[in-house]
């Protein structure tokens, strides 16, 4: 059975949490959640949520505000007015990682639903416009993001950490499923 968002407790990252045993097999991400994320939070650069499953921290997601530039051909098919809009508001996934023992069990999918929920709440509860979820993807995670509905941003074409986006209003007619990877 995949782990769903209902199975997780998401708590704000705090030095009081014991994150020393968290290991997603990526040193940079491990270091970030163990030390750096608190400074980012303190300076309002990003906020990190730790995902607890049965009392153990098994994943985290770091979010921040973002905006993206869309090329004309990327927006003309869906933007029904004011085609001169250049910058589009977004919620950025700064970091996302799952403990190596819990990968490929749906935790990443659950966190993606969490992100979609946050983006929707920004619009409906905080009255802050947010149309996209963005990420600078790790190369090894690109296919996972594509399965989630992300597409590459034309404006920031690059090989390392390609910029990707998900239109939260685009109906892909599928709910995220356990899709491997995260």
């Amino acid at each position: 059975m995949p782990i769903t968002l209902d199975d997780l407790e998401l708590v704000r990252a705090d030095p009081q949490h014991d994150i020393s045993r968290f290991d997603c097999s990526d040193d940079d991400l491990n270091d970030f959640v163990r030390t750096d994320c608190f400074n980012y939070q303190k300076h309002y650069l990003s906020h990190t949520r730790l995902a607890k499953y049965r009392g153990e921290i098994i994943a985290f997601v770091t979010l921040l505000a973002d905006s993206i530039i869309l090329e004309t051909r990327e927006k003309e098919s869906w933007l029904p007015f004011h085609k001169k809009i250049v910058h589009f508001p977004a919620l950025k996934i700064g970091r996302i990682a799952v403990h190596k023992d819990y990968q490929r069990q749906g935790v990443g999918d659950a966190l993606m639903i969490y992100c979609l929920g946050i983006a929707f709440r920004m619009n409906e509860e905080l009255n802050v416009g947010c149309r996209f979820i963005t990420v600078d993807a790790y190369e090894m995670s690109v296919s996972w993001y594509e399965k989630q509905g992300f597409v590459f941003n034309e404006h920031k074409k690059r090989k390392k950490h390609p910029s990707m986006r998900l239109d939260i209003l685009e109906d892909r007619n599928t709910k995220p499923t356990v899709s491997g990877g995260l």
Partner: protein
Amino acid sequence: MKWHIGEAVQLGEPEFTLTNPTGLAYSENYLLFYRGHDGQRRSIMARPIEATPILKGKDAEALLRRAESVVVTKERIAFLKTAALQSKKAEKDK
């Protein structure tokens, strides 16, 4: 190509076919110019049923795509509402 009649003109038929009309695009509707059986030039407002661009130029292409663009579905909004509720429920430090 079939067309829905726009609000501006009533021809008595909900759908009709024109062969090679020319025209201008206004939002989802097109102002089509054609010659009737009597040779008189006429115009009507209409919205295409089939997705075949008949107008020239990038504006026409863009407007046609816009007319065909998918509106946000109720299912998507329902999904996002569920995600929002789930996200709120999962946040245990509130």
